[in-house]
């Protein structure tokens, strides 16, 4: 019964989204607003209905049968709803409606025509996605006869980090829909000004913040759970989340120029469209099966075609609208080369170049294969050779930009503080005695960011300082994990001691242990007063062998111990032990945390200041 109510609410949501689109694009702002709020209520009812089926283990619903199990812990029943294609699309639509209601209610949108048109566009997007869900991936489909229990008890996916990582990412991806709708609305109205920047900023801030948190959570999970010691693999789907983030970061900065100088109108609109286009492209890549990736969902060709149609309708429409309306948005304002606005333009160009480079790398195998030229895959070496090089001037500029004054060329009054920072950086480099360009620019960025603190503190100032400083700190962590890691592979006999980096370890032997559903060989390795227990596990039911690394996290570094094969040539109880020390990993997570905190401050700031 509850499932039928939810299903009906979902069908009604399609109708209401249609009303929202019609009201917004013709002339009924009232209908558009009310529809937006009704749409949110209906989609929440639908979502809660599906949650109910999962929580009560209602196995007459096909989706529950395929993705849940009566013995799962409650938390993972709840999160199981978005662990599959159909349920995650429903969550997508709830978030889409949430941002629709946000446009309807936001006090920051002063121009009522803009609000109305944006609601119309948002309604169209909602119609498209609800139709996609209803016709190709209906989460409420029943199954008869009902099986006794569900099929899914995948232990890898039962993880709290993994339960929260997708909703955060969706909040970011879908959040850009509201930015997109406002940009399209502004193109229809034909007015892009300071008021538009103020209206769109809270939406950009919340989407960007959610995306930052989502990406950081995914990286952390990969680092601690997958046991390969990496946190970013340049997997196509990881890139798909990085692309809207880069476009969103560029947008945040171009909005500063639009707000302060009323310039960069067309560019800002274009970035707003691109940010959502990248989100949609990511969705298409994950769910259509054109790229193979560890993140891919089950594949159905009809779904791919449908999402592509949505992508073409949204982005084709918006870029077409842009081509038509762009001449109205001309701003002929020349910036002096040494000014805040010029540095922000440079920042935008560099960020978009990075995004284009990542996009090229992600799609290059597809292009080559389509043209019948070669079957290749693009991996980390390409990105390291290209992205890192473009990032260096960007990071240096991040330190310089905030020193420069708006508008007037000034008297170079910023020269003094900047030179002081440069001197401090040089001193710090002498002090740490690591001769690395990466460290120099990271320290430069941190010092220069701290120098931006202005009394009395404002939220805006603090979010700039924390955001830039956090990135500098994260870069230290990135260099630590990438360039400074110490790897040690050796054969040890019980009682052997060995040193890796600053850690001294003693191998005490291996014994057999048994878990609830696995058997394992477990080593005991003493590190100070601590005992590390890396395991090689064997799961008979799923026929798989896993390696459980032992990890210890310290402020200065992480130590990672993996048990390898037995080696009888070297002794009766000799084993191969692989130890890796990753310096500064804590700086990486702490830096990401500061960047997210900067996002929170920016959000509060853009919300408070009408």
């Amino acid at each position, binding site marked *: 019964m509850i499932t039928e109510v939810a299903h009906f609410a979902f069908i009604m949501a399609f109708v209401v989204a249609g009303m929202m689109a019609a009201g917004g694009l013709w002339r009924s702002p009232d209908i558009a607003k009310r529809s937006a709020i009704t749409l949110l209520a209906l989609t929440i009812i639908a979502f809660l209905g599906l949650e109910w089926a999962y929580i009560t283990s209602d196995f007459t619903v096909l989706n529950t049968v395929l993705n849940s199990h009566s013995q799962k812990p409650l938390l993972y029943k709840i999160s199981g709803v978005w662990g599959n294609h159909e349920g995650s699309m429903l969550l997508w639509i709830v978030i889409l409606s949430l941002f629709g209601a946000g446009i309807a209610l936001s006090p920051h949108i002063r121009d009522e025509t803009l609000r109305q048109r944006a609601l119309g566009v948002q309604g169209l997007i909602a119609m498209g996605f609800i139709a996609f869900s209803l016709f190709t991936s209906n989460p409420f489909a029943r199954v008869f006869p009902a099986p006794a229990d569900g099929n899914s008890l995948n232990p890898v996916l039962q993880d709290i980090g993994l339960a929260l990582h997708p909703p955060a990412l969706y909040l970011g991806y879908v959040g850009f829909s509201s930015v997109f709708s406002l940009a399209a609305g502004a193109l229809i109205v034909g007015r892009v000004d300071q008021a538009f920047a103020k209206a769109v900023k809270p939406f950009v801030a919340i989407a960007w913040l959610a995306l930052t948190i989502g990406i950081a959570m995914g990286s952390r999970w990969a680092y601690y759970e997958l046991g390969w010691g990496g946190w970013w693999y340049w997997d196509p789907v990881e890139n798909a989340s990085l692309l809207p983030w880069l476009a969103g970061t560029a947008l945040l900065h171009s909005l500063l120029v639009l707000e302060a100088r009323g310039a960069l109108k067309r560019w800002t609109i274009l970035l707003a469209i691109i940010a959502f286009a990248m989100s949609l492209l990511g969705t298409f890549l994950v769910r259509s*099966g054109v790229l193979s990736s560890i993140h891919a969902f089950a594949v159905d*060709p009809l779904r791919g075609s449908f999402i592509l149609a949505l992508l073409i309708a949204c982005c084709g429409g918006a870029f077409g609208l*842009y081509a038509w309306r762009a001449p109205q948005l001309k701003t002929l304002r020349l910036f002096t080369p040494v000014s805040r606005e010029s540095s922000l333009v440079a920042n935008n160009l560099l960020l978009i170049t990075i995004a284009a480079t990542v996009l090229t790398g992600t*799609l290059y195998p597809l292009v080559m294969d389509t043209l019948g030229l070669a079957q290749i895959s693009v991996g980390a070496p390409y990105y390291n050779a290209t992205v890192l090089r473009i990032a260096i001037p960007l990071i240096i500029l991040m330190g310089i930009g905030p020193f420069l004054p708006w508008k007037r060329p000034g008297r170079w009054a910023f020269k003094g503080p900047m030179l002081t920072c440069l001197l401090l950086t040089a001193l710090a480099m002498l002090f740490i005695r690591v001769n690395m360009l990466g460290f120099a620019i990271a320290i430069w960025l941190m010092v220069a960011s701290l120098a931006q603190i202005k009394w009395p503190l404002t939220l805006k100032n603090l979010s700039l300082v924390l955001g830039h400083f956090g990135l500098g700190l994260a870069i230290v962590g990135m260099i630590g994990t990438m360039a400074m890691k110490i790897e040690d592979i050796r054969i040890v006999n019980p009682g052997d001691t060995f040193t890796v980096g600053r850690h001294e370890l003693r191998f005490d032997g291996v014994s*057999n242990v048994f878990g609830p559903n696995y058997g394992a060989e477990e080593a005991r390795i003493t590190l100070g007063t601590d005992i590390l227990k890396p395991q090689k596990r064997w799961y008979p039911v799923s026929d798989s062998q896993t390696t459980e690394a032992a990890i210890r996290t310290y402020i200065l570094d992480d130590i990672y111990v993996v048990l390898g*094969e037995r080696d009888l040539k070297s002794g009766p109880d000799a084993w191969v032990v692989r130890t890796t020390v990753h310096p500064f990993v804590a700086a990486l997570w702490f830096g990401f945390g500061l960047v997210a905190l900067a996002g929170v401050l920016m959000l509060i700031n853009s919300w408070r200041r009408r």
Partner: protein
Amino acid sequence: MRRYLPLLIFTMLALMLAYRLTMPRVTGTIDSPLIGKTLPDLGIAELPKGPFIVNFFASWCAPCTIEHPTLIQFKKDGIPIIGIAFNDTPENITAWLKKRGNPYKTVIYDAGDGPSVDMGITGVPESFVVDAERIVRKRFQGPLEDPSVIAEFEAAVKP
């Protein structure tokens, strides 16, 4: 003209993605490069005349115990198996085989630098089907336990 540029780039991208959707997808696993090639030298003079199985195992390996009954059944069905004891001592192996029964026609000792390297195994157990012409036909990583895998192996080794 410049204002049409985003639309133009997007159109090209969309066309390519649409074309990709119509193409067949790559599925399944990649076969071992050894399949279809001649079996590397195992260091023994006499190989069975007909098709046979090469099985990597060790006394310290828990999953090998799981697949052991399958191998015993293969022996009863008259399928010759060459066992390669990986990283193990003759004493341990003898004791292990005495306790559980010996399914192997021949046992070769590999200290980690013999056939295990030539055949590129990733761990124990791992099994290969070799035909009468000494060509490797099949490879399986992990214990022979799943009935469908066992059936495939039987079919391949009994022409």
